[in-house]
Structures are given as structure tokens and as C-alpha cells.
């Protein structure tokens, strides 16, 4: 059997956020798009990824600080980025993510971001693959 391309299980056209945006803007964007990860752009270039968990943690800490410095998405994001082409075989992408303990892969077509494959998508794929009737 041919293994599916990553594009089959990715989340299509993810919302993105600017590196200089506030944490509040990131939360709003995530809620509106109903996602938990946002690719972070700086002048149109991909520079990181931020997750809802990163934002929550930083926001809760900031509430406790006496005079909190203003935090931006840049402070919360992970700069470790893994990009793959949309036709990359899913089996390769998943193996690489497992080895590198990566939380997501940004899926591209040329210079454009067309999707994101996160561990949430991986869990969905795992459930689907396990529940497939034996051929």
C-alpha cells in the first residue's frame, strides 16, 4: 500500500501571527481559528511556532509578577521549526518528528505555508489507522 502524503492529514491553511504581536492577540487569533498552534512570521518569514500551552503558561506567570514586562509572541514561541513539502510521505514526516521530538511540521508549497501537521493531527491519524479494518 502507498503511504499517504502529509497533506492528507494536515490542518489546511493555518492562521499565522506576527512575532511582535501581543500574547493577547495570539490568544484571540487561536480562538477565532479554533487551533492550538500558530506559525509565527517576521516580515513574512517563518521564524517560529507558538502553542496555546506556551501562551497560557506565560500569561499565568505574568499575572503574578509585580511589574510585568510586556511580552510578545516572540517570547513565547519555539524557534525550532520543521518544514516539509506537501507531497512528503507522511511515514517519513512522522518518523522524523518522533526522532527529533518535534511538536509540529509546517507544510509548504514553494515558499507558501499551506498547512500544519501537529501532534493533534498525529493522534487523529493514529486513531484512524488503528481503527481501520484489517485488509
Amino acid at each position: 500500500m502507498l503511504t499517504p502524503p502529509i497533506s492528507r492529514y494536515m490542518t489546511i491553511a493555518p492562521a499565522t501571527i506576527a512575532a511582535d504581536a501581543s500574547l493577547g492577540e495570539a490568544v484571540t487569533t487561536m480562538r477565532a481559528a479554533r487551533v492550538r498552534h500558530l506559525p509565527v512570521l517576521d516580515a513574512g518569514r517563518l521564524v517560529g511556532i507558538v502553542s496555546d500551552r506556551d501562551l497560557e503558561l506565560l500569561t499565568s506567570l505574568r499575572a503574578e509578577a509585580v511589574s510585568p514586562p510586556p511580552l510578545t509572541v516572540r517570547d513565547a514561541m519555539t524557534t525550532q521549526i520543521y518544514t516539509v513539502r506537501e507531497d512528503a510521505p507522511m511515514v517519513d514526516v512522522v518518523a522524523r518528528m518522533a526522532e527529533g521530538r518535534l511538536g509540529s511540521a509546517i507544510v509548504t508549497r514553494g515558499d507558501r505555508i499551506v498547512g500544519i501537521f501537529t501532534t493533534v493531527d498525529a493522534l487523529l491519524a493514529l486513531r484512524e489507522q488503528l481503527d481501520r479494518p484489517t485488509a
Partner: protein
Amino acid sequence: MLVPPVSEFMSLQTHTIGREQNLTTAHRLMRAHQIRHLPVLDGGQVVGIVSQRDLHLMESLDDADPDAITVEEAMTQDVCAVAPDAPLDEVAEIMLERKLGSVVVMRQGHLLGIFTTVDALHCLSRVLQRAAAT
């Protein structure tokens, strides 16, 4: 395909930490045992889980003192314990529904291991390789 139990793909991990311990202690434990997640126990019950990433994020703040911050402040409270024979498709379902990054695997109040999204990636990788070979 026969659905494997969670015990087949979990990371063996029996180290835990108390909620009142500080982040320095959590760090030391993680380093000493080369682990990235510590379940937080209170009276034999899992009450949270703290990851290396949580610690790094907290410590990246200028005014954060790892000696003064307790594990309780950094941990995720939303945890779920499953039995070692829990089928992996059901475990995946629980993680998806409750938006969990990991579940702890326990038998009669004893921690046996953790199944994280990285373990899920390893499992998916194996499943896909098997499917490609048939």
C-alpha cells in the same frame, strides 16, 4: 489490525515529584534520569504533570526564581491515568478529547510509565510502516 495496548508504546518511567517541591528539584530529577515529564503525586493520586518545556518557559522569565516556584505552579492539572492494557485507539481518543499532551499509565496506584505525543508519533510511524509493507 489488532490494536496494541498502551504499555507497548509507553515510556517506562516511575519517577514522580510532589506538588510542593520547587522547580530546581524537578530539574535535577529530570536531568538525573534523562526524562522530560514528571507526574506530580499527592497522596498516591496523580494531580498533575510537569514537563521540561514548562520549566524552561518559566525560567526564561527574568524575575522567575526556580528555587521559589513550586511544581504546582508550573504543572498541568489536567491529567489522566490509564491502565497498561488500555487499547491505544482509546488512549488517542482520550488525549484528543481532553487535549492532553500525555497520559500516565498506572496499575493499582503505582506509576508504570507515561505515554506522550512523542510516543504516539513513534506508534504512528510503526503503524504506517507496517501498512506500507503490506
